[in-house]
């Protein structure tokens, strides 16, 4: 499923809204998550999962083709951990065998 299909589906479920507004809705949610991560905040959505960031230090890398040394700058990478309810939905009836 891609974003436009998600918008279409939600529009069908909410016939009183313009499709344009549903698009604004979906983008507002995604932008809010991205903005939070940019500020260094985490986003916790119970039942779905948690978005957070991890910082990567600058390091000395190598061009794999030439073997040449290159310096890689430090950066921040987004990280997502699925929530318990989501994991349980992906693995139904695994109850007995699993330990978090």
């Amino acid at each position, binding site marked *: 499923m891609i974003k436009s299909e998600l918008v279409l589906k939600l529009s069908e*479920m909410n016939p009183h809204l313009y499709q344009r507004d549903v698009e604004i*809705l979906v983008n*507002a949610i995604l932008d809010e998550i991205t903005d939070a991560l940019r*500020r260094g905040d985490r986003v916790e959505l*119970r039942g779905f*999962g948690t*978005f957070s960031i991890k910082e990567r230090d600058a390091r000395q890398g190598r061009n794999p083709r030439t073997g040449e040394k290159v310096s890689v700058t430090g950066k921040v990478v987004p990280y997502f951990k699925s929530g318990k309810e*989501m994991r349980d*939905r992906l693995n139904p009836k*695994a109850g007995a065998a699993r330990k978090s």
Partner: protein
Amino acid sequence: MAGQTITRADLCEAVYQKLGLSRAESSDLVEAVLREISDTLAKGETVKLSSFGSFVVRQKGERIGRNPKTGVEVPITPRRVLVFKPSNVMKARINGQIVDDED
């Protein structure tokens, strides 16, 4: 860096500000979006959100793990896991670079 936690309530507020619907409806809509994404993933289908990232369900085979406390080997059952692959646009934004939206 701040280190606050953003929750559904903050997403609802953002939607409320942008769309001007009632707070109750804004909150229902945020829930509907998350539910639709979760339902799709639960079916094993990938969800690709351009300029944000993709959620992919991966199948993991059985493997042998070890209880880190006791050192006892235990089989880890095959399972499905959800992974998020951030888009380049999101990665750039989080690092404070300005990017054009190409939706």
